[in-house]
């Protein structure tokens, strides 16, 4: 039973995190990064994301035209660099506003409960 509720908790946390990942990723792509450097960068700032999630996500965001990519073939290892597009920047600004607003409301909800 305890095991079960742990698994449930984990899956709920995962669900919560899922929505914030895009915001986290976009926030770090004002400068161009390749996949692994982005993982390290996010890790340093306390956001854990595994490659199996990040790489496909980058591809999806590129397909949605929020990111632009370019291959660097000059160094010994071919690397695909991603950077936020102008359109991505616009969407990102809007998302941030939305996020702040949402945070305020959720905070209000949670605190209201604690007072009782």
């Amino acid at each position, binding site marked *: 039973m305890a095991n079960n509720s742990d698994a449930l908790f984990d899956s709920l946390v995962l669900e919560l995190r899922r929505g914030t990942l895009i915001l986290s990723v976009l926030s770090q792509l004002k400068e161009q990064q390749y996949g*692994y450097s982005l993982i390290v960068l996010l890790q340093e700032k306390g956001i854990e994301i595994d490659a199996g999630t990040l790489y496909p996500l980058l591809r999806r965001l590129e397909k949605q035209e929020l990111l632009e990519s370019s291959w660097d073939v000059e160094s010994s290892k071919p690397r695909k660099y991603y950077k936020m597009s102008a359109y991505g920047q616009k969407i990102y600004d809007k998302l941030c506003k939305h996020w702040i607003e949402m945070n305020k409301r959720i905070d209000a909800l949670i605190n209201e409960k604690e007072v009782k």
Partner: protein
Amino acid sequence: MNLVDRYVYAVTKRLPQKQRDDIEKELKTLIDDMLENQQGDETIEKKIVNVLMELGDPELMADNYRETKRYLIGPDNFENYIFILKIVLGAVFLGITVSTIVESFSILQQGIVYTFARYLAITLSALVQGFAWVTAGFAIAEYNGIKLLDKKDIKEGWSIAELPEVPQKEAVIARSEIVFSVAFSTIFTCLLIFAPHIFAAYINNGSGVTTVIPVFNIEVLSRFNMLVIVLFILGVMKEGLKLYFGRWKLRLSIPIITISVISAIISVLIFGNPDVWNASFALEVANHLDFTMNVGLWNRLSSVVIIIIIVATVIDVATSFYKGIKYNS
């Protein structure tokens, strides 16, 4: 590096061809980077294992890369699939059972054990085939048909005005009609494939001996088994479409009419072929009943059958078209 190659392959083999090269390069560089970042004095082999374990199940990784879910039969159609499947399997069971009972009384008197064993074998084989062909029909529809039909429905935005009118009673396609159609075509297909000899004249000459004169030339007919099955799949698809829409409208009528016409052509190919029929049927019946009948009519049977198929198809097409237009609100 062998393990790395195997890992990358395990991911990319599950992905569409055109993405593979790109993702392969990407993953290899990633694994390289991760390896460089592994501190400690473990052997390189151990480090590779660590990195790959960290990346996790390649199947899950591939799932993340592949955005669209792949279905044989999607959630939209699953209910209908089960519904049709139940009817077909039920009808297969019924058809084989009834035909076995009829046979055991009239044709084969080969003992109960033999009859029962044969019954079990045929039932099992027919149930498996019924299951397979229905699934195939729905899978084909899933892959092409329904997607095409639905394209208009998938668009951005949605307005109250788009809510469909609750259809008039007459426009609603009764489930009983679908059940009947599917059951009938299943039983007919079953009999044609597993017990074609059951279509016969049974003549009792009074002394207890029953003479059986088959209507079909069974050997020739069995060469058309594949077409009979195609006919069955088309029939199931047609009823499946009716089930999917649930009501008459022009967008339903058009595929229904197309299927009807194709089915008619296939029917003509099978039953319009004079060789499929037992050429001496009329003669033998006449002999056994001791009267002369116009054998010439039987010889022109295939032409008669073609005419019947065409007339039935014309009626079917006209009705579908009429209902589609009338209730297309």
